[in-house]
């Protein structure tokens, strides 16, 4: 067995009218607990160096990001190699509080969807209002991507990141690249 981490699609990349790229191995840590607790939020903030995100938002500083997943769930995104140590730090900070911290890096695949029309490609696949007024940088949404569950957020005005379970990475890449094919431009936004 190799110890070198491999992602689901080995950083596959497609340049259509929007670029779709699987991002290779990524660090992901699931944190569960009571997000209404000030003590809990402060502990997570201290351990990650990020403020605890508000509902359906993601906070980023450098290569670490902290995402709101549900009223009792957060997810940390970080470099793959950093996840175990960072998870240890979060766990230590939450000592004595009802919580769960788990490295989930290899459970999921992450994609980058970038280009001026990136929001249009996602709008073809998810039942989400992606107009610039309704969804902007820092906004996050868990939803349905065609027939699978996925979450995506906006890094900046021209790039989305999307995560889904590793077992359906091929399906996600297939529908994303199909929606990004030249000739499929809609020009709605």
């Amino acid at each position: 067995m190799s110890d070198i981490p491999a992602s689901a699609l080995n950083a596959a990349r497609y340049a259509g009218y929007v670029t779709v790229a699987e991002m290779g191995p990524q660090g992901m840590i699931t944190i569960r607990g009571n997000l209404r607790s000030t003590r809990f939020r402060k502990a997570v903030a201290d351990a990650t160096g990020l403020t605890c995100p508000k509902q359906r938002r993601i906070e980023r500083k450098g290569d670490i990001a902290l995402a709101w997943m549900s009223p009792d769930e957060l997810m940390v995104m970080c470099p793959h190699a950093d996840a175990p140590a960072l998870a240890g730090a979060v766990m230590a900070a939450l000592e004595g509080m009802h919580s769960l911290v788990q490295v989930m890096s290899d459970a999921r695949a992450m994609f980058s969807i970038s280009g001026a029309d990136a929001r249009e490609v996602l709008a073809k696949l998810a039942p989400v209002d992606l107009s610039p007024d309704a969804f902007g940088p820092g906004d996050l949404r868990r939803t349905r991507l065609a027939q699978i569950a996925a979450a995506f957020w906006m890094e900046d005005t021209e790039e989305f990141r999307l995560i889904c379970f590793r077992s359906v990475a091929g399906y996600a890449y297939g529908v994303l690249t199909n929606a990004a094919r030249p000739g499929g431009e809609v020009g709605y936004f």
Partner: protein
Amino acid sequence: MLVLTCPYCGVAAEETELHAGGEAHLKRFGPGASDEDFTGYLFGRENPKGVHFERWLHANGCGKWFHAARCTATLELFGTYSAQLTEPPEPIRKAISAKRPGWRWREFS
């Protein structure tokens, strides 16, 4: 197309993001219950034409269960509320009364 607002993540989720969980506010009758109560728990359902209360799961979303009050005849939504409540809260009852005066559903009105 139904659009229900999930009270946990605040998303106005359309039907395909959700999973229907059947009638709301069922009282469980288990071991030691009478045959009549147990039968009612398993099979007795309202199935109304009009005001109805249901459980829904934000399956392709935050993963939480919640309650919804809606009209089965018009698909009109009166509101959604926490899964932890054992009966429809006052704001929901008021919203229904404003549009369906004199409504009744099981012991609620």
